[in-house]
């Protein structure tokens, strides 16, 4: 994987400064990750909108070199 967990967390923190951000490695292979972003940025957004915001923040690695990323977003 060419993007590190730290890099992904940084991108999310930059995009969602008022949110709690965590990226975890689900199986320890650096390739199956879970990103959780929780905070007021998502108030009033549908799940699809919330996930799109996260995908946009992470950039083009999603669906390309980043193989498996599970997302969890919520407003609180």
């Amino acid at each position, binding site marked *: 994987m060419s993007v590190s967990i730290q890099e992904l967390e940084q991108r999310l923190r930059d995009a969602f400064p008022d949110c709690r951000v965590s990226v975890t490695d689900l199986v320890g292979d650096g390739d199956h990750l879970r990103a959780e972003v929780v905070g007021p940025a998502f108030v009033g957004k549908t*799940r699809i909108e919330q996930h799109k915001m996260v995908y946009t923040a992470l950039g083009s690695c999603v669906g390309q070199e980043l193989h498996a990323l599970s997302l969890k977003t919520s407003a609180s």
Partner: protein
Amino acid sequence: MSQQEIFAAIKQDITENDIVLYMKGTKSIPQCGFSAVVANVLTILGLDYKAVNILEDDELRQAIKDFSNWPTIPQLYIKGEFIGGCDIVKEMFESGELQDLLTEKGVLFKAAS
């Protein structure tokens, strides 16, 4: 095929079929854990659905991402509406929202026993 033609084919698929799942692999042999989760949810609900294996068609694999404006596979459509990927479908199933949505859209499913 031009992108316009592929988009037209996708549009036709999601219009003519109540439920369409764009996935990696097939219903019986999913090639990705996320696709398997969504296929399982649909099976548990006893839903008949059209599965499209995007691994068999590189053009479609990119086109469906552009069509839905969604960068990952699987993608679930119900009655022509994009519902989401694995995480969203799983959350909606567990909370009962997916079942409510099916009822609202007039799609019959098997209630949990």
